[in-house]
């Protein structure tokens, strides 16, 4: 196969994978930007909701889109519960530091991971691909229906989110809450509802990523939360904490680099490349590619 064809083929694979990483990072960056909380449970929420999708297909025999929406709905609800139970109560404490919700959400992550191991065994299971695997030929390149689905769904969700945040009343309310919650409140914004909604939406995005990644790799296990959660966190830092553009571009970047590393170097370095990029970014541009300048 010609070298350039391999290159473009790997690029397509990388873009598809990267689009899911962008979705995961989007969830992190939303919660960080509005609540100033690093939601360490995000990866395991992704995992649990991916299992919800798996469950819907395996037992209720629903189609792909129904399972996706069902998983996203479960993510939304789980995110609401997460915010109310593990994050909000901490804000009332007079000794509040940013470490508190970090630890609290780690606790939720451990809980969810162990819950999944109890319910589904720690082994990897086949993720039902309800999507017919059709392969399309575009010139010398091949793209599969699954990859198209990944790219389109991730793009639609991320563009919808970006447009909502920029142009809708709710989006303005979220931005106002992120910058000055007290001001937002006397302008009429129900700040606690905005905070809950933000975590809920973030978790719904994670759920979508979980289902897409499950379908893409054909497998699911209770440990994917840790893996994808970690990669999503790395994308968050690479892109810049709180930056939506950073999450989008960083995710694509990591996906492409990961696929290229596997293709041109060795699959042994698949997960390591993420950390290598993280190290590089922290050395050269610690606030992330699209990061804000350090707050005083």
């Amino acid at each position: 196969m010609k070298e350039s064809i391999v290159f473009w083929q790997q690029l397509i694979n990388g873009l598809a994978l990267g689009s899911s990483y962008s979705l995961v990072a989007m969830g992190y960056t939303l919660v960080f930007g509005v609540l100033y909380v690093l939601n360490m449970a995000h990866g395991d929420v992704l995992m649990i909701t991916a299992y919800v999708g798996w469950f819907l297909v395996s037992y209720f025999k629903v189609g792909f889109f129904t399972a996706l929406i069902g998983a996203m709905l479960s993510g939304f609800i789980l995110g609401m519960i997460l915010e109310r139970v593990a994050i909000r109560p901490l804000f009332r404490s007079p000794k509040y530091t940013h470490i508190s919700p970090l630890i609290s959400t780690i606790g939720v992550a451990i809980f969810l991971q162990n819950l999944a191991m109890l319910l589904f065994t720690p082994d990897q299971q086949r993720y039902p691909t309800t999507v017919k695997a059709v392969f399309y030929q575009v010139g010398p390149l091949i793209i599969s229906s699954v990859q198209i689905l990944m790219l389109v769904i991730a793009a639609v969700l991320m563009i919808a989110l970006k447009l909502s945040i920029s142009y809708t009343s709710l989006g303005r309310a979220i931005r106002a809450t992120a910058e000055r919650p007290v001001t937002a409140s006397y302008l009429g914004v129900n700040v606690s509802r905005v905070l809950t909604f933000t975590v809920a939406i973030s978790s719904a995005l994670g759920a979508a990523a979980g289902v897409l990644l499950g379908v893409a790799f054909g497998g699911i296990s209770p440990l994917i939360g840790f893996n994808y959660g970690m990669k999503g966190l790395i994308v968050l830092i690479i892109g810049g904490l709180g930056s939506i553009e950073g999450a989008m571009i960083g995710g694509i970047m990591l996906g492409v680099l990961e696929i290229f590393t596997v293709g041109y170097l060795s699959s042994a370095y698949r997960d390591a490349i993420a950390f290598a990029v993280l190290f590089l970014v922290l050395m050269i541009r610690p606030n992330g590619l699209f990061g804000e300048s350090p707050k005083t």
Partner: protein
Amino acid sequence: MLKVENLEVNYGHVRAIKGISFEVHAGEIVTLIGANGAGKSTILRAIMGILRAAAGRIELADAGPIHHLAAHKVARMGIAMVAEGREILSKMTVEENMRMGAFTRNDSNVNADMDRLFRRFPVLGERRHQLGGTLSGGEQQMLAIARALMSRPKLLLMDEPSLGLAPKIISEVFQIILEINQDGTTILLVEQNARKALQVAQRGYVLETGMISLADTCANLMKSEKVVQAYLGG
């Protein structure tokens, strides 16, 4: 319009407001003057629902008691605030700040109101699509006022609008306050600049360490020896 009875507000263990009562009638400008730390801002924040009253009542005409309501609910009752230090949303544009001012409204006149305010404050109109953080202090004060007016409030709370502004801009701001009132908005004004405040308001209360020490028409307060000595430079 607004009745405050025996209001007490604490900052932690410190009793900042020790039981004050006052009234604001519809169509008035009432001012609270006093030195730094006397508790003036605290009163406005308690009315707005940003701070919780430890005791006492705050009643709004046609709405009843509001002292237990959260800020977003107080906003929906028709009270708008121009906060100390402006509190502009600096990462949002001038226009977006204005739209946030109308957040509690869902009628169709929002755009018309915004255009009218941009004509009233041409500087804001020029900077319509600029980020709030790029405006000067005086421009931000105008934006804070315009933003508050976007909700067509029954009562406007103004917290130290002259703070940090050049004297010429201060005069402009107080002219605006007068005009807003003439258009029909009731205003409760808290100010350290006692001279300007007493010139623009009809009635005033003097606040000293959390308690009201004097209450009278502004005309009389300006003549009171105590006020002249303590707040008007002798």
